[in-house]
């Protein structure tokens, strides 16, 4: 635990050592919010309803999903691919501690930073643009929402980990990471609610695991899914988590045997 906390402390110090980078990183997020706001305002100028969403609901969706995206998609695990390709992974393999203890420490600090600043940014944005946000749901819905969120965070971690571990077999994971980033984010519901898609596409997207990341928790928080179905979907989400966990641990074991520690 002490190692874990020290690793967290070091990651915080690393973040704070580049002030300009840090400020610009947060400014980018604020610009995203601004763009979304203008996009949805324009879309709702001539119509009152798109699919199941009126203007107020869609504003709620983009603001809360923005916050959830910051929480779910903030991840540092992709650095592992670079470590494998550059041979820097050796540094971690030599330590008498699990590599993942250090990776998870970095991951959690990254999420903590994102969440803290995201809350401030979203609140500031809501205040400046006078957007009304009401969250009203029962205790059971809250529990199932939190479970959906946890499954989403874990799922994204293990998907990302599996992609990063491709580094054991290929010299660059840039392309698979880039494609997966677009597919995962696009089909997760981070950009728009998935049920506004045409029926056929919606069914395809729903069969993929990515809707669990943002769309499912958003459906729960907006009361757009009945409780029993939500429970089933969360249960399926945990099955996906387990599958990607099994895949990444298989890849890790196989990959280590393939590791050549090039670059040393």
């Amino acid at each position: 635990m002490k190692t874990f906390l020290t690793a967290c402390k070091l990651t915080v110090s690393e973040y704070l050592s580049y002030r300009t980078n840090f400020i610009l990183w947060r400014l980018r997020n604020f610009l995203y919010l601004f763009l979304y706001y203008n996009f949805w305002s324009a879309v709702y100028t001539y119509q009152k309803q798109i699919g199941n969403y009126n203007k107020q609901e869609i504003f709620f969706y983009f603001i809360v999903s923005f916050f959830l995206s910051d929480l779910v998609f903030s991840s540092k695990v992709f650095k592992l691919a670079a470590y494998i390709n550059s041979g820097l992974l050796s540094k971690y393999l030599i330590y008498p501690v699990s590599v993942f203890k250090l990776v998870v420490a970095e991951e959690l600090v990254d999420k903590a930073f994102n969440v803290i600043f995201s809350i401030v940014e979203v609140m500031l944005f809501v205040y400046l643009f006078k957007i009304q946000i009401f969250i009203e749901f029962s205790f059971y819905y809250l529990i199932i929402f939190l479970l959906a969120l946890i499954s989403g965070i874990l799922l994204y971690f293990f998907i990302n980990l599996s992609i990063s571990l491709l580094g054991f077999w290929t010299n660059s994971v840039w392309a698979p990471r880039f494609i997966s980033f677009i597919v995962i984010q696009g089909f997760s519901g981070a950009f728009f609610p998935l049920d506004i898609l045409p029926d056929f596409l919606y069914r395809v997207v729903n069969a993929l695991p990515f809707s669990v990341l943002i769309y499912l928790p958003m459906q729960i928080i907006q009361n757009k899914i009945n409780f029993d179905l939500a429970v089933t979907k969360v249960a399926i989400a945990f099955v996906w988590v387990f599958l990607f966990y099994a895949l990444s641990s298989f890849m890790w074991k196989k990959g280590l045997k393939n590791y050549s520690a090039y670059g040393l």
Partner: protein
Amino acid sequence: MTEVIKVANLVKTYTTYDKESGFWGSIKSFFYRKKKIVEAVSDISFEISQGELVGFIGPNGAGKTTTLKCLVGLLYPDSGQLSVLGFKPFERKREFLKQIAFVMGQKAQLYWDLPAFETYSLIRDIYQLSETEFKKNLDELCQLLDFSEFLNRPVRTLSLGQRMKAEIIANLLYKPKILFLDEPTIGLDVVMQDAIREFILAYNKRNNATVILTSHYMEDIDSICNRILMIDNGKLIYNGSKVDLSSKFVTEKEVNVKINLKDKLNKQLLEQFGRVVSCDQTTAKLMINRSKLNGFIKWLVDNYSILDLDIKEPDIKYVVKQVFSAKK
């Protein structure tokens, strides 16, 4: 002496592929790549005892670093038996990793943007050192390497030499029993190289630690190691003392002679006996075949008034050069 490293019939191969040069070569390699199996280490066996200072030498790509990587558990061997401190390295058991250090001259193990002290505090926790132990070891290492004033500077602002010192401290804070040093003086100036060498010797004496060193600077090997493992094309071609190395591979001895001012050395005459490395009127350096040595000394004594005569084994740099240039 207790053997801490046992290697028997170690084999390690890599899969790589050839790519033709140029644009067309790149296009072709996009569609088809011819795989190539490279045997980096081929049937190597040796043992190393506790406290030994062993130099691992050979040309680039000979298999030195691959062997070290197998010994520290970074690589899985294809076949053969490996035992380090009684552990199988590739299982990477915590108890094993706590007792070894791998200093990689070309790789930074420190957090680049933070002061070295921050990495040291992580190492303290990873290796479960008590605060007193940590402080004592850190003070001792900083003093030996003259590093105290750089402890709180971000690593990226340190010079190459200071960074190497910082790396060495990071690797020795927990007092490992075996030190694997891969090019520890690479890129350092001569003063810093000397400082590192002296330090490694002092650490070995204080802790009876085993040191296995690879380096292209023969001065490193010469001043630190008393045993040599020579490797070429993945095969171990020499395993023995530093002293016996030259007699095995080189038939010549180095002779330095200084004569009285009234005499004059004649280069042509000297060349009858061997290769003249340098020669002026009163001093000469020659490489003379061992079989001709007695005759040469007799001739020298008969013809010159000798002020000084020094006969020694050629230095390690010369031996290595002879061995590998002969192979080429």
